[in-house]
């Protein structure tokens, strides 16, 4: 026994850092996702009581697992369901009980199975995101609800439904079958990226939403450690790190939006940049380059430029070409048009924009109009620019986006 120190903070740290590993080990041994999670919650409650009275055990993770198994047994006994499956499980738990003070007990890491289970395509996308944050990230239901601007009760119901479906629909707790692994890994990556972009859309003061960016990076790190040979997992982590390196400079003192050309590059996070650049290089070593790796490469070119003017724009244009050839999405052309306007001329940028204008979807896409407005303004075509700025403002969802565009609009000479 250790002296009774700060049981509360020890438990908080364990939940923060080891929740995924402990839960994955429990789900793997008892099979039932909901039961494993509920029992682990029970064990956490006991830990707070016992540890603050008697002191923390030497192997707190093992203590939690052992107690959670005992709680699972209690839960099975208490429940009136006496089917074959739960009697077998009860028997197994009775035979595998161990001493919570056992220091040597090793905890197998089944987080990869846990990630694939939480991101199973049989679940709705939003549930995959929520369950991943809950199970791997150790976030509480309340925190997840705050992050997605949902009511806690609605989020709790969503999580319960998702866990119930995993059990009842026959989703096995395992790695995907070999023929499915590529696609299923893509799903996991897109869940992590969705968490990241959700965090990027946070407006000032939405703390929990901003935290999603760090959660996504943490999940990205877990995934690259579990799948060390997966290039796109590295590409995704690189993309998130590079984008996050500019976090502090993206907004001004009063929360206003600061565009890339006005950002104070001295405040970019160099540790994030060097880690992101190194990961991008490894991610792109294997052909064909994936979408996250290529986007990371573009972000890396920006991150390494000493100033906005010193940016290697032709390189960025070329990377967008490779990306577009592999993943022809008209939205890519908008960013490419901006890069082309600096690599070549604003006219060239406008021509590229015009080539995707026919795609009806872009008419209601804010960045299309914002980009067009910028190119027109730089060409001195202020009346047309004003029209595009107004279209972009009308489509802006975040107030600081709209006010940035308003400032640009008011700088035009309209008569």
């Amino acid at each position: 026994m250790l002296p009774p120190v700060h049981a509360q903070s020890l438990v908080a740290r364990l939940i923060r850092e080891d929740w995924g590993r402990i839960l994955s080990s429990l789900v793997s041994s008892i099979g039932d996702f909901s039961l494993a999670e509920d029992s682990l919650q029970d064990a956490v409650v006991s830990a707070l009581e016992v540890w603050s009275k008697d002191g923390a055990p030497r192997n707190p993770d093992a203590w939690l697992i052992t107690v959670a198994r005992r709680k699972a047994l209690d839960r099975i006994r208490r429940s009136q369901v006496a089917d074959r499956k739960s009697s077998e499980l009860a028997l197994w738990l009775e035979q595998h009980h161990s001493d919570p003070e056992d220091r040597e007990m090793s905890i197998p890491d089944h987080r990869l199975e846990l990630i694939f289970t939480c991101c199973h395509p049989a679940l709705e996308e939003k549930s995959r995101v929520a369950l991943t944050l809950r199970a791997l990230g150790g976030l509480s239901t309340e925190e997840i609800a705050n992050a997605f601007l949902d009511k806690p009760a609605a989020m709790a119901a969503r999580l319960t439904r998702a866990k119930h479906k995993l059990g009842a629909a026959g989703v096995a707790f395992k790695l995907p079958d070999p023929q499915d692994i590529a696609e299923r890994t893509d799903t996991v990556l897109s869940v992590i990226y969705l968490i990241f972009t959700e965090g990027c859309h946070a407006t000032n003061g939405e703390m929990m939403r901003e935290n999603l960016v760090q959660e996504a990076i943490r999940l990205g790190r877990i995934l690259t450690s579990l799948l060390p040979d997966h290039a796109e997992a590295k590409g995704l982590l690189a993309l998130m790190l590079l984008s996050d390196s500019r976090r502090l400079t993206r907004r001004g003192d009063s929360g206003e939006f600061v565009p890339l050309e006005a950002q104070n590059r001295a405040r970019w996070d160099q540790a994030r940049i060097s880690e992101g650049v190194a990961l991008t290089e490894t991610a792109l070593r294997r052909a064909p380059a994936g979408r996250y790796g290529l986007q990371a490469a573009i972000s890396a070119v920006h991150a390494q430029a000493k100033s906005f003017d010193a940016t290697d724009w032709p390189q960025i244009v070329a990377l967008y070409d490779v990306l577009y050839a592999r993943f022809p999405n008209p939205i890519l052309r908008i960013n490419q048009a901006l890069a082309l306007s600096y690599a070549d001329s604003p006219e060239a940028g406008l021509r590229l924009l015009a080539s995707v204008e026919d795609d009806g979807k872009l008419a209601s896409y804010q960045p299309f109009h914002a980009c067009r407005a910028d190119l027109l303004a730089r060409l001195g075509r202020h009346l047309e620019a004003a029209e595009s700025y107004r279209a972009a403002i009308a489509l802006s969802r975040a107030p600081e986006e709209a006010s940035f565009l308003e400032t640009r609009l008011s700088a035009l000479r309209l008569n």
Partner: protein
Amino acid sequence: MQFMCLIYNAEDNGPQPGTEEFGPYMQGYMDFTEEVREAGKLLGGEALQSVSTATTVSVRGGKTEVVDGPFAETKEQLGGFYILDCKDLDEALAYAAKIPDAAYGRVEVRPVMIFD
């Protein structure tokens, strides 16, 4: 686990009797049935007659009501089913994807409730 694969499609969608594609389409069903049988997965399965033959029954307050037509008037109708014995949902989904109508309509996969 037992999974029921419910095959939904609009009757006028996909290969129609009398066309060139119909033969290979039916062969696809025979091949699939053979494959799941060989693999020891097949517990049952039938094709249903056209939805125009459907009659729906309900009993309310002891009174039986019979109406012409299917349970719901949707474009895509239940056309047949398989019951497969699979180790988990992934395996069931992989087999469901091989059912010829998955390429034209949709296949709903539902675990069968086991009472024990």
